[in-house]
């Protein structure tokens, strides 16, 4: 393997990591509030509000049912407006956020629902406000489950980012597509796939370890 192809792999691996991390961070900033609102406004939540819960639920389901590749094309005008380009790693970030924020919202919702209702009742009995229950009880008590969810969400975003190649988005997916699919250079495709597999392994392992290390429930 020559120096130029090594630098190509390095560059595109970095592009993949960049797209994944930025999209994950922004998606979580949107997804956590979405999940919190879903849980809080649910009929047995701390501030039940059926209209909000239903409308938000439908909205999330609509975004989750659009295949990512279609979504990628559908949001192109929005992408252009947000990042002033429809090419390169930057251009893949808006569609990644549109696809993953609702998904993360659902993951956060299911994590928060695992929090024991008795603990929430105890906080209420101490005179806690709903805000205090959210940031002092719901989120901290759900932390291990949220971290496990993050491992799943981030690896999903990573695999979505590989589709960026279809819109000239760069990254490892683009190498696999351009060399493997269009030029039949299977070896190059295989190498980029192997790098993707390694990245997924690293992310999954890191977050699972973090979840275990910070969970205080079963450590004697």
């Amino acid at each position: 393997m020559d120096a130029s192809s090594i630098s190509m792999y390095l560059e595109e691996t970095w592009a993949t990591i960049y797209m994944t991390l930025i999209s994950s961070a922004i998606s979580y900033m949107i997804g956590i509030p979405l999940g919190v609102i879903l849980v809080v406004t649910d009929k047995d939540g701390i501030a039940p509000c059926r209209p909000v819960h239903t409308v938000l639920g439908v909205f999330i389901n609509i975004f989750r049912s659009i295949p990512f590749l279609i979504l990628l094309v559908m949001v192109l005008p929005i992408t252009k407006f947000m990042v002033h380009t429809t090419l390169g790693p930057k251009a893949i970030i808006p569609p990644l956020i549109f696809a993953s924020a609702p998904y993360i919202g659902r993951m956060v919702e299911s994590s928060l629902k695992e929090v024991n209702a008795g603990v929430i009742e105890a906080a209420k009995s101490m005179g806690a406000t709903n805000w205090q229950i959210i940031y002092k009880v719901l989120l901290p008590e759900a932390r291990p489950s949220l971290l496990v969810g993050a491992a799943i969400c981030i690896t999903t975003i990573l695999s979505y980012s590989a589709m960026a190649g279809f819109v000239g988005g760069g990254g490892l997916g683009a190498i696999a597509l351009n060399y493997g699919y269009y030029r039949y250079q299977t070896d190059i495709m295989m190498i980029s796939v192997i790098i993707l597999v390694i990245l997924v392994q690293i992310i999954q392992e890191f977050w699972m370890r973090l979840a275990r290390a910070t969970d205080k429930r079963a450590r004697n």
Partner: protein
Amino acid sequence: MAKGDNIVRLVHMGKTFHTDSGDVKALDDINLDIKEGSIQGIIGLSGAGKSTLVRCINYLEVPTSGQVLFEGQSLGDMTDAEVREARKKMGMIFQQFNLLDQRNLLKNVTFPLEISGISGKIAKDRAMELLRLVGLEDRVKNYPAQLSGGQKQRVAIARALATNPKVLLCDEATSALDPKTTAQILDLLKKINKELGVTVIVITHQMSVIEAICDSVAIIDHSHIAESGPVSEIFANPKTDIGRKLILGNGDINETPITFGDSTKKKIRIVFDGLSAYKPVISEMTLACKVPVNILFANTREVEGKAVGQMVVELPDDHTEADQITGYLRDNEITFEEVR
């Protein structure tokens, strides 16, 4: 507010749940005055409404009729913020402890202080003081998962006391614990009542818990208060079927009721208070009357150094002999009543 005043008053309080399968009346016309500094018991079978009742006291459940007065003020007239302030004066502990799993013991006890806007050294010192009170000062860095049930309940008690509440609500606080740990937790509650002057409201299905620590008791049956009053009076002379069932059921109403031998014979229940329990009452009675009696059921235990208990005896068929025995008991001022 002086000791002896009513700190909590429930006035014609009712709670109806609206469910898909129609309305369910959980509580109906509940009237109960709880004196400051007392230990009030509320007992009933499961489903009687006692858990709903305790949640109405701090408005975790909002009653659908009547009033809840705390320190003379109606919770129904308060804003949400005022209700939250009132809750800070009422600690609560639960059957399943409900500790925060991801916080260590110290942080669990400082939690209600954080909610009240108290942090730093003041909160830490207060938490340490309370953890010492419950005997867990050497476990502050531990997490709830590392504790036994009794220890978890101790932490929950320390946490409930952090904001210096006037009332401590205990919802089946000992039901998940073994008998020995139950006794320790009850002792702790008694100590908190005596030393800190906290009014304790105990919800339970076990008569033994009521006997052990309560001054007064209210018996809840089918959403109503069947009877209420001082524990000694209710215990000596229950007026309702549910009261008799709870007392005779050996302190645990989940046991099957005892059927007392031959149903045609006359039976009496003799109640022992602190004095009579140390005297050989039955032996003296049979010696004095020269009449044998059949002991069907007996149950005595020590409460605060006094023996209390009860015994059911079957009287002879002969009316004169039976009258001789009841006369003897009356003469010796021993409480008894006829049972079926």
